[in-house]
């Protein structure tokens, strides 16, 4: 096992990884920007190295600084968390070449799956359905032709990344050219390269993803699915496991499909295979080659610590269980609490004055904020993940409702009231909502 791990991240996920390391008796090195000197990941790591100014580009994305920090502290491995350098194949390569273990899959796998067009090809090669679509589009005309062929609506996507950047839904031939140009220019500014492709657009799918774990000895298991359909502009806001509308049979099919893709690329570490699900048909969308924000809901129903598993796998340990040993128990939901206006979703950094954290049975809070903490304006607005577990979905929901009521964060706006509203919606409570759920909610709010 590693003696010392550097965590190349900040906020709650840095703290999450530090906790896992401590519980594995591994020493930890935090890195931080000048804006994060008072943050908990700095306080609770064994060592902390300032790596740059507040801007991420020169700190948390600064590869030489981070590698150098690992070198001067003799860290044997780097955990990248999510975001920042987590899916940067180049960074994984540099770690390797410097003799530092990158805690994640190989650079080669990151690169393959990072290109969404290539990932689709690999999925099909593995025998997993994808939506009808294109390869990298050479021109608007080529795109228009393919769109015509598969039928509108279609969605144009960036080959280089996800998160909704560079995406455009196109409903008619007439609007194709504009959408193409807009998507491409957004893609260039977000990912530094112009590759875009298109896919059939499903009107009312569920976003369902399967958590997998693979070790470096070829063992692979899946840990069931998560339903991440509550999205605003392709950003997940609420996730749960299992998905309320997925049967055991469908769960097995999804799991099998995810494992096929993982096996095809020789995946090791924790990873997520994302699918769109419509009327019991599911289609491979992409694979995320990192730990995800929403990993806790899977941990709550499997009681398997995914971050510890990542670390053990990176240290060369084999998985200690087989697929048949994975036992899903109860139901878990996560709300991402952001420092944002709960109506306009405009970010709201600032100082936390009053503070009360929910607690008790079946409630988990992953956060790096504390009373009087000043949320810096430089980074992501997510300030806490509130996770509940119940024997069934109804209990998990009841726990979330009372926990949201108990969660007091004064001094800044947060999305707690937004979540409270969602947890009153019949559609949400029934569980059969799709990725269009929030859109509908906002439209109905406007019409009131």
């Amino acid at each position, binding site marked *: 096992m590693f003696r010392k791990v550097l965590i190349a991240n900040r906020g709650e996920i840095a703290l999450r990884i530090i906790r896992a390391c401590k519980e594995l008796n591994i020493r930890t090195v935090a890195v931080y920007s000048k804006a994060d000197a008072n943050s908990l990941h700095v306080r609770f790591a064994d060592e902390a190295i300032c790596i740059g100014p507040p801007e991420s580009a020169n700190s948390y994305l600064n590869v030489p600084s981070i590698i150098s920090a690992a070198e*001067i502290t003799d860290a044997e491995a780097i955990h990248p968390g999510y975001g920042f350098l987590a899916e940067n194949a180049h960074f994984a390569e540099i770690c390797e070449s410097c003799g530092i273990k990158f805690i994640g899959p190989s650079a080669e796998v990151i690169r393959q799956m990072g290109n969404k067009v290539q990932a689709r090809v690999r999925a099909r090669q593995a025998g997993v359905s994808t939506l009808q679509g294109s390869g990298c589009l050479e021109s608007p005309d080529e795109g228009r032709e393919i769109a015509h062929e598969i039928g509108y609506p279609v969605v144009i996507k960036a080959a280089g990344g996800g998160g909704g950047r560079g995406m455009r839904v196109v409903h008619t031939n007439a609007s194709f050219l504009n959408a193409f140009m807009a998507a491409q220019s957004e893609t260039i500014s977000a990912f530094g390269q112009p590759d875009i492709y298109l896919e059939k657009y499903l009107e009312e799918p569920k976003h369902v993803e399967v958590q997998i774990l693979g070790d470096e000895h070829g063992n692979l298991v899946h840990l069931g699915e998560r339903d991440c359909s509550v999205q605003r502009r392709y950003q997940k806001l609420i996730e749960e496991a299992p998905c309320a509308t997925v049967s055991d049979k469908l769960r097995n099919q999804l799991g099998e499909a995810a494992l096929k893709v993982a096996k095809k690329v020789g995946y090791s570490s924790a990873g997520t295979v994302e699918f769109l699900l419509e009327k019991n048909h599911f289609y491979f969308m992409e694979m995320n080659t990192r730990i995800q924000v929403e990993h806790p809901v899977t941990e709550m129903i499997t009681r398997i610590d995914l971050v510890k598993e990542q670390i053990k796998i990176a240290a060369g340990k084999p998985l200690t269980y087989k697929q048949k040993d994975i036992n899903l128990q109860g139901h878990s939901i996560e709300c991402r609490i952001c420092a944002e206006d709960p109506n306009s979703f405009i970010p709201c950094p*600032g100082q936390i004055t009053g503070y009360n954290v929910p607690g008790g049975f079946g409630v988990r809070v992953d956060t790096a904020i504390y009373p009087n903490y000043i949320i810096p304006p430089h980074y992501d607005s997510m300030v806490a993940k509130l996770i509940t577990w119940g024997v069934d979905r109804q209990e998990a929901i009841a726990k979330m409702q009372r926990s949201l009521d108990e969660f007091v964060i004064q001094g800044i706006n947060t999305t707690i009231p937004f979540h409270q509203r969602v947890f009153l919606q019949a559609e949400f409570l029934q569980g059969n909502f799709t990725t269009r759920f929030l859109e509908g909610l906002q439209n109905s709010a406007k019409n009131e």
Partner: protein
Amino acid sequence: MDTKHLKRLIKLMRENNLQELEIEEPELKVRLKLGLPAEVFSLPPGVIPPVSALPHEDAKALPHVEVPSEENLFIVRAPIVGTFYRSPTPDKPSFVEEGTEVKKGQTLCIIEAMKLMNEIEAPVAGEVVSVFLSNAEPVEFDEPLMTLKPKS
């Protein structure tokens, strides 16, 4: 008059730092007076009370020797994370010693990061007053390396 409208007025008062507000309409007259502010936020730094935000358990975050800026000393800080070296190779003499007069742009030391030797140059001409680190010590971003007394 419902409380929603009142809340909106109070928000307006806070946002604009109003202490009192009085509105007289044909059908309605309202007068509001705020108590002392509770929140802090964007007050100038000197105004913020020394709240007991979680203090660092030890000096591991920002363990810099904070150097007093008396005598207009110029603090040379590390622009990158790495290992600090006083000389180009172990068998060579140090670039500078305390008391050395340096020209602007003259190499003061090296910080090694990812096998690259980054020469740190004097930002101003002057005299080296003190060097804070020993040879081969690790340095963080922005950590003070040495002080110069600029040539006037």
